[in-house]
């Protein structure tokens, strides 16, 4: 009797896994701004809200209050792709930490001792129906001050 029930549950496990994965996808899309393309919800090619249409802007704020845009090099692009796909606190903090590390390297043009904060913004692009005129709107913004635990 019990063995029969276990068999039945096992037989449905792949379908249950797919349903769980898809529900998680919808939850993250609606609550945490996940790009509908990713996360296992089968939303690829269904919307213009894809990672490449989510520009990320990183600004370094110096102790004197000056602001300078930061351009990420290739090894950090992967961290940025994560942050723009799911711009939650955890991924934005990871991007801030990686950026801080990159600023500490030679040739960044910024003095890490002079860095007061990093501001990270993720935007998304929408297009008008007839003219395709693009509009940017801010999805997420977070400032990580030097000395913060998570950034």
């Amino acid at each position: 009797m019990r063995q029969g029930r276990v068999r039945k549950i096992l037989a449905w496990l792949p379908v249950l896994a797919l349903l769980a994965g898809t529900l998680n996808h919808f939850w993250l899309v609606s609550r945490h701004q996940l790009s509908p393309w990713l996360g296992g919800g089968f939303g690829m090619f269904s919307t213009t809200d894809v990672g490449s249409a989510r520009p990320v802007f990183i600004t370094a704020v110096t102790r004197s209050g000056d602001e300078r845009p930061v351009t990420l090099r290739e090894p950090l692009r992967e961290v940025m792709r994560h942050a723009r796909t799911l711009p939650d606190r955890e991924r934005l903090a990871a991007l801030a930490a990686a950026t801080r590390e990159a600023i500490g390297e030679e040739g960044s043009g910024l003095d890490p001792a002079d860095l007061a904060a990093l501001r990270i913004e993720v935007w998304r692009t929408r297009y008008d129906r007839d003219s395709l005129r693009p509009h940017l709107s801010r999805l997420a913004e977070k400032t990580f001050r030097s000395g913060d635990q998570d950034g």
Partner: protein
Amino acid sequence: MDEVRAGTVSRLRLATLECDSFELAAKLTFLTPLFSPVGDWYIRPLILCLSAAGLLVPDLWRSRWLWTLLALLTTLRVWQDWILADNHAYLLAYCCLACAISAWLRDARVLALNARLLIGLTFAFAAWQKWASPDYPNCVFFLSTFLLDDRFEDFVVLLTSLTYEQIDLARDYLEGDYRFEPAAEALPFAIPVSFRVLSYLSMAWNLFEQTLVAVAR
């Protein structure tokens, strides 16, 4: 030459007919990572070796341990790539899991049930997200994607009156930084009718075929 080709085709057809449905599904699943290798530097060789062994060693496709290992490795790959793993990664993991469970339970009907439901649900979710999308049924998705995604560039130039230069101009316009100043009213050229027709047909066809597969399952 034609005789050789006809012989090969009939041998393939015979081999396919001789396979039972689980064997056929198993062998096609083994082929997937062989044609399109997946995973990190240490997962990839393992998946490749297991898949090749499943194809080459007689009766290994029935092995519950082989399928369990493949299910674990493909799931590990999804977990590693999360959140950037694409749909194929999830589907391969679900498919290997269904094969593993079917092999453990020694019941091909379990695989048949899962195959039908996995395909049906995948297409249902894909179709539903397209129907519900704010920019899919109104064609904005295809109009912008055909201009921005360079994989479609040749296709668009071949089938519409757009030129490569116009596509470059459109990219500059569509990808500009408009945080502080709004974009100009429209593209620097009029969108040709042929391009609108191509986008409309692409949208209609995709909605139709994905909905059809979902309903048919």
